[in-house]
């Protein structure tokens, strides 16, 4: 049985917590382990932060979209979408320690963290049009649903 949810929220930093909690609450019915839940929350947090900071430059009038899908067999798909500035060179942005540089002590490890905690990470971006991050994770289950 498949299940799906979608939410949109302002590109405000305080919504990072909301987004990861919403994703965690949605997948909770699959009875994930604490570790799986933490990994999902972290992946969502990284992708949503990227959209808010880089995609929209923290412009609260813009909206970030989070979509979660649960497939039978315990496969979780997380899609984070923005219509922001986009990433010029996705391959380069995915390299560990890559950062556009700033005084705010950014580590450039966001994509690396997403990659390590998810089974699959796909980044589609177009300059001036936005970025869609799709993460897939197979839960070790399954009792719930």
């Amino acid at each position, binding site marked *: 049985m498949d299940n799906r949810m979608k939410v949109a929220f302002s590109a405000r930093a305080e919504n990072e*917590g909301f987004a990861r909690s919403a994703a965690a609450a949605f997948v909770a019915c699959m009875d994930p382990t604490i570790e799986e839940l933490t990994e999902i929350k972290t992946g969502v947090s990284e992708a949503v932060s990227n959209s808010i900071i880089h995609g929209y430059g923290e412009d609260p009038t813009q909206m970030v979209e989070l979509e979660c899908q649960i497939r039978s067999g315990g496969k979780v798909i997380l899609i984070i979408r923005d219509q922001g500035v986009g990433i010029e060179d996705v391959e380069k942005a995915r390299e560990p320690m890559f950062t556009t540089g700033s005084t705010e*002590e950014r580590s450039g490890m966001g994509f690396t*963290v997403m990659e390590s905690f998810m089974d699959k990470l796909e980044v589609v971006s177009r300059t001036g049009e936005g970025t869609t991050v799709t993460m897939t994770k197979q839960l070790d289950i399954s009792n719930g649903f």
Partner: protein
Amino acid sequence: MRLEFQMTDDILIASAFGELDHHSAGAVRDEIDETMKAFGCRHLILDFEKVTFMDSSGIGVVLGRYNKVTKQGGRLFLAGCSEFIEKILYMAGVFTVVDKQRSAEDAVCLLKGQQQIEMEVSASGQ
């Protein structure tokens, strides 16, 4: 995220409570830096025992404090990190430069023990 501070000799212990993400990182960074300045501490212990969530924003907070503390001749210790927090910090190679201890108390003991040895060495050298 909430911070609690404790000072012992020239060591500042900053204990963090709650979630450390991009949203909270800025305030955490400022509060620690201001407290370090106000108390004029030399060493810093970041106690993450009560941190319930951390993403890659934590890496910047840790490495930024490491730069500040080493510049003033002090040492930075991380204490109470969960397995998950350690995993994220490891990815960025944080532990190649930052020491970690099981608890803040262990880090204080180690720092004070080393200071004791340094004092004895300099006394015997005179």
